C-alpha cells in the first residue's frame, strides 16, 4: 500500500485533557490542573493551546473567520474557497500530564476526595453496582469504603475477590491509601520527586514499598492492558475525527509500556496498528498510531493523546463523508427498522451508513466508559427513535446495546447525535444501569459538543 513510516505520512492528533476542567462531568474531581502544556519525553507530536472559538449552536453551522482556517479546514471548505491551505496536522488540544507533576500536585488534595471517590467507585455495598465499579470481578458485598482494586491496578485481574467483612483479601494487598492517612503520601513523595526528575519514559513509577505494583515493564505487562489502552485511544480518535467513512479498528499492538502511580492511575504509552472498520474489499489497510492513555483508576473518561497516520487522503475522506450524508438524506423517514443488524447479522446496504454513524456516536460513549478494566463493543442498534434531516445536519436518536467486557453485560445506551460532514460530532447520551433488587439503579450520562470542550480550556 502506501509508505507506512509515520515520519513520511500525514497524521492526525487528538487529545483530551486532565479531568476536572470540564463542567459537564459529574464525578467529584480533584483540583483542576492549570491547562499549561507539558512537554514530556518521547514521541509526542505537538502541543499547542487551544483556540477559543465560539461554540456553534446545535445544528447551526457558523462560518469561521479565515484566520482559523488552518485549524479547522473542513469548516473553511464548507464556507469559503475550495482550496485550503490546511497543513498536515489537526491539533485540538493537549493535556496529558507527566506522572511526576501529577503526583506533586495531587498527593495531598487527593486524600480528601479519595474516600469519596472510593465510595462512589464501590457503589452500593452489594450487588451489581459494586461489581460494575469494580470492573467485573467477583461481586461479593464490599465492606464500606474498601477499595476493590486488584493486586495490580494496571493489570487486568478483575476477578480478584474484594474483601468481604473481616476476611482478609484473597491474593490482594491491603487497600490503597485507605485509613492510612497522610503518612503514605509523604513516604511516597520523595521517591516520586526522584522519578519526576528522571522523567516518565525512563522510570517505573510508584516506588513506595507499601504500594502493590511497581512500574510494569514490557515483559510484565498483561497484554490485555495495552489492548485496552489501544481501544480507548481508537474510540476517542474515531469520535474526534468525526468521519463515519474513516472509522478504524485495532489491528495489533506493536509495543507498549505502562506505569502506575500510587493513586492507581495508569499511564500507558503504546504504538499500534489499525485497520479500516469493516472494509468492503476484505483487504488489510494498515495504519499506525501512537498514543498515551491515562486511565484514572476505574473512573471513566481516560485522558488520551493519540496520533494516527491518515489512511485516507483528506479530500477523499471528505468526499466519502459527503456521499454518505447525501445517501442518508435520501432515506425515507420514519425508518422502518427494528434492529440493526438483524439477528442474523444482516444489515440492508441502504442502512449501512446508519450503522456507521451510530458507531461514530457510540465511539464517544465507549471512550468515556472505558477504564483499565472495562471495555466495550457496539453489539446492536436496538432501536432507531428518530432520524431527522430537516436541517442541514443529520439528527439521529437511537438506542444502542454495548457489550461490556469483562462483565459480559449488555448496556443499553440512548444516544442523540447531530452530524454534518466535516463538522465535529455532537453527542448526548444516557446509559442504563441494569437495576437489581439490592441497589438503586444508577445512570450514566454525558454529552459532548466539541467546541464547548475547547472553550473550557
Amino acid at each position, binding site marked *: 500500500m502506501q509508505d507506512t513510516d509515520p515520519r513520511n505520512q500525514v497524521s492526525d492528533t487528538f487529545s483530551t485533557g486532565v479531568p476536572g476542567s470540564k463542567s459537564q462531568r459529574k464525578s467529584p474531581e480533584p483540583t483542576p490542573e492549570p491547562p499549561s502544556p507539558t512537554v514530556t519525553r518521547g514521541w509526542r507530536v505537538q502541543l499547542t493551546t487551544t483556540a477559543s472559538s465560539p461554540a456553534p449552536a446545535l445544528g447551526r453551522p457558523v462560518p469561521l473567520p479565515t484566520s482559523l482556517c488552518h485549524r479547522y479546514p473542513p469548516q473553511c471548505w464548507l464556507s469559503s474557497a475550495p482550496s485550503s491551505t490546511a497543513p498536515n496536522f489537526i491539533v485540538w488540544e493537549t493535556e496529558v500530564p507527566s506522572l511526576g507533576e501529577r503526583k506533586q500536585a495531587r498527593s495531598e488534595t487527593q486524600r480528601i476526595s479519595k474516600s469519596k471517590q472510593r465510595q462512589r467507585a464501590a457503589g452500593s455495598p452489594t450487588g451489581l453496582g459494586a461489581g460494575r465499579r469494580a470492573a467485573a470481578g467477583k461481586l461479593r458485598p464490599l465492606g464500606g469504603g474498601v477499595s476493590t482494586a486488584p493486586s495490580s491496578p494496571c493489570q487486568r485481574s*478483575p476477578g*480478584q475477590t474484594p474483601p468481604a467483612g473481616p476476611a482478609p483479601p484473597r491474593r490482594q494487598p491491603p487497600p490503597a491509601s485507605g485509613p492510612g492517612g497522610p503518612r503514605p503520601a509523604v513516604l511516597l513523595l520523595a521517591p516520586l520527586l526522584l522519578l519526576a526528575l528522571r522523567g516518565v519514559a525512563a522510570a517505573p513509577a510508584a516506588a513506595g514499598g507499601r504500594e502493590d505494583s511497581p512500574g510494569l515493564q514490557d515483559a510484565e505487562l498483561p*497484554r*490485555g492492558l495495552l489492548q485496552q489502552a489501544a481501544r480507548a485511544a481508537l474510540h476517542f480518535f474515531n469520535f474526534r475525527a468525526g468521519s463515519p467513512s474513516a472509522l478504524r479498528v485495532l489491528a495489533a499492538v506493536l509495543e507498549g509500556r505502562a506505569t502506575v502511580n500510587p493513586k492507581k492511575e495508569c499511564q500507558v504509552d503504546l504504538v499500534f496498528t489499525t485497520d479500516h472498520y469493516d472494509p468492503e474489499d476484505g483487504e488489510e489497510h494498515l495504519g499506525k498510531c501512537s498514543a498515551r492513555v491515562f486511565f484514572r483508576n476505574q473512573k471513566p473518561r481516560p485522558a488520551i493523546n493519540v496520533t494516527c497516520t491518515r489512511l485516507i487522503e483528506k479530500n477523499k475522506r471528505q468526499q466519502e463523508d459527503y456521499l454518505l450524508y447525501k445517501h442518508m438524506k435520501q432515506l425515507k423517514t420514519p425508518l422502518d427498522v427494528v434492529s440493526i443488524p438483524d*439477528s*442474523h447479522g444482516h*444489515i440492508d446496504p441502504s442502512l449501512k451508513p446508519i450503522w456507521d454513524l451510530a458507531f461514530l456516536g457510540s465511539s464517544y460513549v465507549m471512550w468515556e466508559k472505558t477504564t483499565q478494566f472495562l471495555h466495550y463493543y457496539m*453489539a446492536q442498534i436496538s432501536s432507531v427513535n428518530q432520524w431527522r434531516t430537516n436541517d442541514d445536519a443529520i439528527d439521529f436518536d437511537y438506542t444502542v446495546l454495548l457489550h461490556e467486557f469483562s*462483565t459480559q453485560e449488555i448496556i443499553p445506551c440512548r444516544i442523540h447525535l447531530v452530524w454534518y460532514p466535516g463538522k465535529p460530532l455532537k453527542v448526548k447520551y444516557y446509559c442504563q444501569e441494569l437495576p437489581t*433488587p439490592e441497589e438503586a439503579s444508577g445512570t450514566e450520562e454525558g454529552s459532548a459538543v466539541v467546541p464547548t470542550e475547547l472553550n473550557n480550556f
Partner: protein
Amino acid sequence: MKPLLGTLYLLGILVPEGLGYDGSPAQPRREVVGETVRPWRSLDTYSYTSYHPMEEIYQWMIQISEKYKGVATMHFLGMTYETRPMYYLKISQPSNNPKKIIWMDCGIHAREWIAPAFCQWFVKEILQNYEDNPRIGRFLRNLDFYVLPVLNIDGYIYTWTTDRLWRKSRSSHNNGTCFGTDLNRNFNVAWCKTGASENCHNLTFCGTGPVSEPETKAVSRFVESKKENIVCFLTMHSYGQLILTPYGYTKNKSSNHEELIQVGQKAANALKKKHGTNYRVGSSADILYTTSGSSRDWARDIGIPFSYTFELRDNGTYGFVLPASQIQATCEETMEAVLSVLDDVYEKYWDSDSAGKVTSTAVGLGLLVSFMSIL
C-alpha cells in the same frame, strides 16, 4: 430406551408449540427477519451457511444419524432446565481397536450463534469427507468424535424468540425474579472464586453451587465417565478470535502448557492461511480475563490433556451478531485450525512413523540376536 424417551420428548415439544417457540401469551418481540422457517425435506438442501433455530437443529441431527447410519449416531445426554432433551452426535467408524475420544461442544453461551453453526459444519465436513480424504479418514481409524451442537438449548431458543443477546441458561432463581446461570462458570473447578458473580442478575452468575445446573450436570457426568479415553476437549465460543489454553482461574500454567501453546499456535497459523484471519493464542488468564468454573479448565483438571476454548469471529465489529454471510469463511478457517489440532493429537498418540521405527528396530535387534546366537 433413552433415545426413544428423548424422541418422545422431542415430539412433545414440537407438536403443541408449533415451531417450538415458547408458548408465552404475550407475543415476544420478534424481528422481521428476511427468512422464514423453511421446512426442508432432505439433508441435501440443508444450508450450512445460515443460522438455524433449535427445532431445525434437532431435525438435522436426526437426519444426519439416518443418512450416515453406520458412522453417526445420535445420543441422549440429559435434560435442560426447561426439560428439553440434549443430544450429541457420536461419529465413530466401527472397528476392533480401542478408540480415543475427541469432544466438541458449541453454544454453551446462547448468543454465540456462530459456534453451533460451526459444530454443524464440522460434522458435515467429517462425514462428507472421511471416505475420500485420507487426512480425515485416518482420524476415524483411532478416534471417535462426540459433538454437542448446542449445549445451552434453552438459552439458544431464547435468543431466537426474545433476546438475541442472552447469554446464560434459563434457570429460575430468587422466586422467579431472576433467570439464568452462566454455564461456563458453573463447572466444578475453583467454582465462583474469581471472574464470576454470586449475583443472579449478572451475566457471569456462577449458579447456586458447582454443577448446579442440569446442563452442566449432563455434560460433567458424561465427560467424567469417559475421561480416561478423551484426549481432546474443545469448547466453541465467540467472539474474539482466540485459542485459549487453561487456565482461567489462575495464572499458573498446566503441566503441558508449552505443548498446548505450540499446538495452538500451529492451529492459528493454519487458520490464518485460509482467509488471513488473525487469532491469538494463550492461556485464558493471560490474554483474556480470569474466570472460574469453566468447562475447559475443568476438563484439563480431570486429566484431559488437550483442552481448548475457541473464540471464533469476529473482533468486535459485529460481535455476537456475526453476519450469516461470514459463516462459510469462519467455518472453513476454523476447520483448518481444528484439523491441525487433531493432526498433532493423532501424531502424538498414533504416529505411524514412530510405530514404523519401533517395528524396524525390533526386527533389527531380532536379527542381531539371532546372529549372535549363531556365532
